[in-house]
């Protein structure tokens, strides 16, 4: 009888052991992710200043955002314009560099280091360096432009050029994406290229018929992460331009940040945050849905060949 009780407690203990191992994450997930996420949704229905009276306002925050806040549309426009330039350029440059590094050149490790180096430093440091590179009078960029006879703009103080400056500075940090592409390229079997070369395919045909399809899952992954990162663009705007001039670099994340921590409108900013969250989710789902049309997984291709 006694041993039976012992055994059942030890069995129960046995069953709880796995949960003890993952307990830190469960607690952390509830305290720092799920809890805040739900809380954020709740306060988005409130007028909630940091100090003072909190009042339930229903959907008023969302209504105000869509109908009565020009800055909402300004920041959305800035973000979308940035994404339209940044997302494709980032992928093209990262892929180009990865393809060059994949060509078995001597010293490719050194080149790889050069391309990845900007990705290990802080966004603040990156912003500081570019602030000086972009300097209208003494900056190195305008010096290079002057060598080819172009008079460079006053980058960060010009509403037309400041957003472009943001794109260029962000492209500097493409290193991680390049490494992911490089790993993807190394996984493409060499014999595919050899066989197609025997069939008389040129380099361009090989790129579009072999490299792009074989790499398409990686491209899909990079596409999603870049879109999300475009909507999270905050550090660069805060440090480099402060959103200006004339709100030309007033990114959506910055709009949200200012509503919360400058104007102390926690409820309204949470409504902003949920809008962003839903947009990012929808975009991700759209990219995924479209992926069946252009992403080729190796398994599928082999099945297709058999059939």
């Amino acid at each position, binding site marked *: 009888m006694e041993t039976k009780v012992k055994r059942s407690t030890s069995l129960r203990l046995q069953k709880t*052991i*796995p*949960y*003890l*191992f*993952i307990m830190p*994450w469960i*607690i*952390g*997930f509830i*305290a720092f*992710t799920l*809890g*805040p*996420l739900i*809380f*954020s949704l709740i*306060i988005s229905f409130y007028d909630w200043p*940091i100090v003072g009276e909190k009042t339930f306002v229903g959907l008023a925050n969302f209504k105000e955002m869509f109908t009565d806040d020009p800055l909402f549309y300004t920041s959305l426009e800035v973000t979308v314009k940035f994404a339209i330039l940044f997302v494709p350029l980032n992928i093209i440059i990262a892929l180009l*560099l990865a393809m*060059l*590094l994949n060509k078995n*050149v001597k010293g490719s490790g050194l*080149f790889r*280091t*050069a*391309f*990845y*180096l*900007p990705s*290990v*430093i*802080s*966004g*603040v*440091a990156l912003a500081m*360096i570019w602030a*000086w590179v972009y300097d209208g009078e*003494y900056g*190195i960029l305008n*010096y290079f432009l*002057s060598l080819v006879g172009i008079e460079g703009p006053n980058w960060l103080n010009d509403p037309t050029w400041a957003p472009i400056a943001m794109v260029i500075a962000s492209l500097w940090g493409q290193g991680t994406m390049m490494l*992911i592409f490089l*790993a993807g390229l190394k996984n493409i079997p060499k014999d595919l290229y050899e066989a197609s070369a025997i069939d008389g395919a040129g380099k361009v045909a090989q790129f579009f018929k072999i490299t792009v399809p074989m790499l398409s899952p*990686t491209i899909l*992954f990079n596409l999603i*992460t870049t879109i*999300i990162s475009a*909507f*999270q663009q*905050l550090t660069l705007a805060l*440090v480099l331009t402060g959103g200006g001039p004339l709100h030309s670099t007033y990114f959506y*994340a910055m709009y949200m940040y200012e509503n*919360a921590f400058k104007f102390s409108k*926690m409820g309204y*900013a949470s409504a902003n*945050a*949920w809008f*962003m*969250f839903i947009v990012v989710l929808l975009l991700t789902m759209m990219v995924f849905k479209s992926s069946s049309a252009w992403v080729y997984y190796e398994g599928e291709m082999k099945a297709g060949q058999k059939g």
Partner: protein
Amino acid sequence: MFGSALNRWGDLMKKVLVYAVLALFSLMFLAPFYWMITTAIKSPEELYVFPPKWLPTVFNFDNFAKAWTIQPFNTFLANSLIVTLLSLIGQLASSALVAYGFARFRFKGRDTLFVILLASMMIPWEVTMIPLYMEFNALGWINTLKPLIVPAFFGAPFFIFLLRQFIMTIPIELEEAARIDGANPLQSFVRLIIPLMGPALILVGVFHFLSSWNDYLGPLIFLNDQSKYTLTLGLSQFRGMYGVEMESIMAVTFLICLPPLILFFIAQRYIVGGIATTGIKS
């Protein structure tokens, strides 16, 4: 014969072209770094000139010490070190523990929980930033280093995922033998698995060090007092400050970039290999 010579010539030209493009891009990626370093050691007279001077006539290495004392950067450094090192310990211990739980046990709800863990990586930090601020405010943690340290003790999804994948590649026979000899799971984990996890723990350690040392938004939101600032926050306030010239800003920027750059050179093969095998970075 003539044809093959032409072919060789063509191959050579292609090689030269590849090298030329790689070199050109390298210059473009390294030029801003060079511009930072050369500015950091310039004297004030050579700072604001056009065309820019590539090399200063006198190397002012005391710019570094001078810039460092304009603001209490020693305090900022101490705060950055406290945050980075303490959170690093928490991150490694908790993520490895949770990863072991997901990798080695069958239990009710495991797969659902793991999917939730993966999905939670998709939640942008900006969405939880406001409630987190309020939560830490209610706990009385605002303007302390706790919000930058404590969450690391509960593991991070990406690192848990990465370590779990690594543990799954380790054969389970050793642990089974140990269990028959009477070892409990915690003992197996600490004595058998941890020693084998070296490369994966280094990778997680490096990634965590970089994200913690480089973090700007966390300190910006959770800290108010200058005595609590980390280096990145101190640096961001440095620009536009009255009387602070570009050579000082670049000197401090260089010093703050130094630890990540050194770490990268030491751990390069782990980082490159790590990104190649997992395909993601936080």
